[in-house]
């Protein structure tokens, strides 16, 4: 195994970087979309409940099926993978964002409203800082979930660590299978550990 890594470092590092790239793009897009939807949700509890419900249904669809559904529209490759990953993340992010914001002590919200804060001021100055823990938990869960599901995206030619596994399975190459599993699991466990440490500090 070590020998393989020494001889072909590019074959491991390139997919790893691809994987991280996919993760970063997905995360940025997910956060932008989730923030926008959360802000709209503050205006209507019916809308926010419907939204979380819809995304929970989508989240329950197996990723490979969702990838396959999108291929006729967006084709094979990273774009399709990122769309699916962003949609999946909405459930994890919205549920935590909306619940976190709703759990802020109602007397604090009343005091802030009574002093003349408008909705955006209430959100940015009071609700977001006070629910930062729940918000960050959502981000951590979506990062870990993205790392995992992105591995499957290799089946639709999106690259990433899944491609090492894919190659290994296709050619029955145990070393590749082991490296693929090791890197995918390692990245998820390491990132989760790191983000959990940050979360404790909040």
């Amino acid at each position: 195994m070590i020998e393989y890594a020494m001889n072909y470092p590019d074959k491991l590092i390139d997919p790893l970087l691809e994987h991280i790239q996919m993760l970063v793009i997905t995360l940025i897009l997910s956060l932008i979309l989730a923030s926008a939807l959360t802000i709209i949700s503050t205006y209507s509890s019916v809308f926010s409940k419907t939204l979380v419900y819809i995304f929970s249904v989508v989240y329950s669809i197996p990723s490979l099926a969702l990838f396959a559904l999108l291929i006729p529209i967006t084709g094979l490759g990273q774009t399709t993978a990122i769309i699916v990953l962003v949609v999946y993340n909405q459930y994890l992010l919205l549920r935590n964002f909306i619940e976190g914001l709703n759990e802020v002590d109602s007397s604090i919200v009343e005091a802030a409203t009574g002093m003349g804060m408008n909705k955006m001021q209430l959100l940015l100055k009071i609700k977001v800082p006070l629910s930062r823990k729940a918000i960050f938990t959502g981000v951590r869960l979506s990062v870990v979930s993205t790392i995992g599901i992105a591995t499957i995206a290799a089946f639709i030619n999106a690259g990433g660590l899944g491609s090492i596994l894919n190659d290994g399975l296709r050619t029955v190459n145990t070393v590749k299978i082991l490296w693929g599993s090791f890197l995918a699991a390692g990245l998820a466990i390491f990132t989760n550990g790191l983000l959990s440490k940050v979360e404790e500090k909040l």
Partner: protein
Amino acid sequence: MTQKAIEISNVTKKFKQAEYNAVDNVNLTIDEGEFITILGSSGSGKTTLLKIINKLYEPNEGTIKLFGEDIAHVDSVQLRRSIGYVIQQIGLFPHMTIAENVATAPKLLKWNKKAIHERVDDLLNLVGLNPSDFKDRYPSELSGGQQQRIGLARALAVDPKIMLMDEPLGAVDAITRLHLQDELLRIHGGLQKTFLLVTHDINEAFKLGNRIVIMNEGKVCQFDTPKNIVANPADEFVSSLIESSRNQGKFWEGLG
């Protein structure tokens, strides 16, 4: 002649799914500089009435004028910035220091830093807390009585002409409560603002208010000076309130 600060005309509020009106055809006229206490048991509509004045609730019927201006025509956010508001749970912002808490309303009105700084110091002195000791602390590091003082300072920050206080002393112990009652009278006397204080404590209502609104089941039973209320209770409910307080006094005398 003193100006009319608050004119409440035929105000009724009924919550969805409620059988009775929370506030039932209330009419009150309050002059500038008065200290009005609103006395009633829970469910009497006193808090609802207060929240209609700063538009946290919309009345179903009736009008409210503040200094002659109908609040229905004023933007609710702008209106609330011109009214001081204190609630029983205090609602200090736990992620902000005491100075930042007190500076909330001035910041919303975009005062400059120096003015905010000076105002915070003045307010902390006014409520009897040393600015250099308290400014950089967080609410969780303060006692209940100290927190309530900060809640009061925060509400007074932009020098509102009207202060609405919903059981502001409800969460503090009896001794602190007496101290803070005296402080409230002192602050009111010095500022000539119009104070509206909701309480269910009859002693507090009669001690603080120059006039008292007694509410029961959404209606105003009586609105008069403490002396007139004791001399001429308007109905049975008011008589029984006074009677209960007298009995309590006798009970203490009996122990002495």
